[in-house]
C-alpha cells in the first residue's frame, strides 16, 4: 500500500502536500537557517564559516539571558492570571448564560480582529497622565494617580489583556467537553458542588485548560508589542533583544542564538503537551 510508486495513492497524502510544501519552505527551512546562523561567528552574514559556540557563550557571560528570564517569568504569570480570570467566565459561557452564550462569545471574539498594538495604545491613552483614568480620578475626586505606564506591571497587564481570548476559548471548549450527566452523576453519588468541581469537572476539563495555557504561554513568551507600547523599554523581553541583534546591531548570529534558546523552551513545552492529546478526539467531538 505504501510502496514508493504508490506514495501518493492515498488521497490524504495528496491533500496534505500544498500546505506541507509551504510549511517546509516557510517554517522549517527558516528555523533551520536560524539554528545554522546561531553557530556562526558574530557579525557574519553567511553560513559558510567555521561553526563556533561563541554566541551562546556571550549570551551567558553578558547577562543577556536575563531578558529570557523576564520573558519566561512574565509569560508564566500571564498564564496563571489568565487561568484565574477566565475560568469563571468560561464556566459561565458553558453552564450559566444559556442562550446568551453565543452573543457573549461573539463579544469576546471581536477584540481579536483589532490589531493588538491599537488596543494596547488604547490602554496607553487610558492610563497616561491626563488620560481616561487619571483624568476621571482628578475630575471627580481630585486624586493624582501614580505612574502605572512604563512599568513591568503594565507589561504584564498588557499581556493578560491581549492573550485573554486565547485562554478563554480553549477553556470554554474544555468545560463544554464535560457531559452534564457526569456532573449530575457525581452529585447524585453524594458530592458537594465543590467536590463535583474538584473530582470531576476540573480533571475532565484539563485538556482545554492545558491547551489554553500552552497557547497563552507561547504567545506571551513571543510578545513584543506589549513591552514596546506599554513598557516604554523599561523591560527588555527576549524578543526585543533578538530584534535588536537582527536589525540595529546587525549581529545575526547572536540574534539567531537567542532565538534558538527561545525556540528550545517553546518546542519542548509544545511537544510534551501536544503529545498527550488526540486531536481527532478534541476537535472532532461535537
Amino acid at each position, binding site marked *: 500500500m505504501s510502496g514508493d510508486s504508490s506514495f501518493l495513492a492515498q488521497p490524504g497524502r495528496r491533500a496534505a502536500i500544498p500546505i506541507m510544501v509551504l510549511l517546509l519552505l516557510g517554517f522549517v527551512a527558516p528555523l533551520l537557517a536560524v539554528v545554522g546562523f546561531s553557530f556562526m561567528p558574530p557579525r557574519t552574514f553567511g553560513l559558510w564559516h567555521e561553526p563556533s559556540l561563541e554566541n551562546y557563550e556571550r549570551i551567558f557571560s553578558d547577562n543577556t539571558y536575563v531578558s529570557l528570564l523576564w520573558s519566561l517569568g512574565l509569560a508564566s504569570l500571564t498564564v496563571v492570571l489568565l487561568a484565574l480570570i477566565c475560568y469563571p467566565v468560561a464556566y459561565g459561557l458553558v453552564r450559566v448564560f444559556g442562550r446568551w452564550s453565543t452573543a457573549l462569545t461573539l463579544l469576546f471574539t471581536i477584540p481579536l480582529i483589532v490589531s493588538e498594538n491599537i488596543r494596547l495604545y488604547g490602554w496607553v491613552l487610558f492610563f497616561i497622565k491626563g488620560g481616561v483614568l487619571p483624568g476621571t480620578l482628578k475630575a471627580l475626586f481630585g486624586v493624582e494617580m501614580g505612574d502605572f505606564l512604563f512599568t513591568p506591571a503594565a507589561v504584564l497587564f498588557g499581556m493578560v489583556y491581549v492573550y485573554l481570548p486565547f485562554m478563554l476559548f480553549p477553556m470554554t471548549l474544555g468545560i463544554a467537553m464535560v457531559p452534564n450527566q*457526569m456532573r449530575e452523576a*457525581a452529585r*447524585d453519588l453524594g*458530592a*458537594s458542588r465543590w467536590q463535583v468541581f474538584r473530582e470531576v469537572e476540573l480533571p475532565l476539563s484539563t485538556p482545554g485548560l492545558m491547551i489554553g495555557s500552552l497557547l497563552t504561554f507561547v504567545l506571551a513568551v513571543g510578545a513584543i508589542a506589549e513591552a514596546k507600547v506599554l513598557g516604554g523599554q523599561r523591560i527588555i523581553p527576549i524578543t526585543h533583544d533578538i530584534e535588536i541583534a537582527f536589525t540595529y546591531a546587525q549581529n545575526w548570529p547572536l540574534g539567531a542564538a537567542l532565538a534558538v534558546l527561545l525556540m528550545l523552551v517553546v518546542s519542548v513545552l509544545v511537544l510534551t503537551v501536544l503529545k498527550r492529546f488526540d486531536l481527532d478526539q478534541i476537535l472532532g467531538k461535537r
Partner: protein
Amino acid sequence: MSKPILQLKNVRKAFGTLAAVDDVNLSIGEGEFFTIVGPSGSGKTTLIRMLAGMEKPTSGDILLHDKRINDTPANERPTCMVFQSLALFPHRTVGQNIEFALKIRNVDPAVREKRARELMQQLHLPADYYSKNVTLCSGGERQRVALARALAFDPQILFFDEPLSAIDYKLRKTLEKELKDIHRETGKTFVYITHSLEEAMVMSDRIGVMRRGKLIQVGSPNEIYSTPRSRFVSEFMGDVNVIPVEANGAGSVRSQSLGASFKVLANSVEAKAQCLVVRPEFLRFLDTPADAQNSLRGILYNEYALGSRIQYQVRVGEKVFLVEKLRQQPFKGKLDDEVLIGWDPENAILVADE
C-alpha cells in the same frame, strides 16, 4: 403492596407553559421493582429526574418515608441513579469509579476497596479490572460498573434512566435478567424507566404507563397486558387488533366500518367511545363461523415468521387484522386464500378510545 417508601402527590413539572409531568400521584412500595414506561416525550425522564433530585417539581410533593424531599438536593438524598449514558468518569479506573461515593463520604481507603471488590464479585466483574481504565471496558462491563458504583454507598432506592437502551438485543436480554437477580439479592427498591414495555414486563413488579405527562395506568405486568384501560396502553404493548365500536344493546357492540356486530362480556359495555381490542394470539382461523362467537371473512395477505410463532396478515375489506398461531399448529391456508377468522368474547377487551 408493602409499606410505601416513595410517594408522589400531585407532582407537576412545567417548562414554560408546557407541563412535562402533569399531576402525577403514585406510591412505590419498599423493595419494589417499579417501572415507568412511555414513549419519548411522555415525561418519564423528567419524572425520574425529580425523584433523584436533579429537577424540582413546579408543584406537588415528593415524600420519602413520609418526609417531604422536594428541596433536598441529589447529593443529600439516600438514592442513586444509573444514567442512560452511564456517566462513568473516564479519568478514573473501574475501582475508583465504584468507590467514588465512598470517597466523597471520607470512607477509609481499605474499607472502600473491600466494598468495591465485593461488588465486583457480585456483579461478575473480573477482579483484575479493579485498576483497569473504565474507558477500556466493553458495553456490558460498563453497565456492571455503573450499577456497582450506584450500589456502593448502599442507597435506599436505585433509579435507572434507560441504561440498557443502547445495548444490542442479546446482551440486553441477559442484563435484564441479571438486573432482576440483583434486585432480589439486594432487596432494594428499584425505579426503572424505559420506552420498551417488553423490557418492563421482564423485570417489574409493577408498571406505570405514562403519556403526555400523565400516569395513565398503574398495575402489575399481567394487569397492564391483559386489561389495558385505553387504546394507547393496549397498542403500546405490541401488535393488537383494534376495532372502533359503539354500544349495540346488552352484551353487543357494533363496528360501523366493518358493518358487523360482536358479542362482548356483558359488563364491559359503556356509553362513551370505545375500541374492541383483540390480541393476535387470541384470533384464530376457523373452519366454519360456528367455531367461535365472533367471526369475520377476509383474505390471507401475508405471513411473518416470529420464531416460535407465525403471524398472518388478514385483510377484511380495508381493515388489516393480525392473527398469530404457534408454529407447530397445523394450518393449510395459502396467500390470497379466503379465510375465516374469529374469537370468543372473553378474549376481547373493550377500552376507552384514547
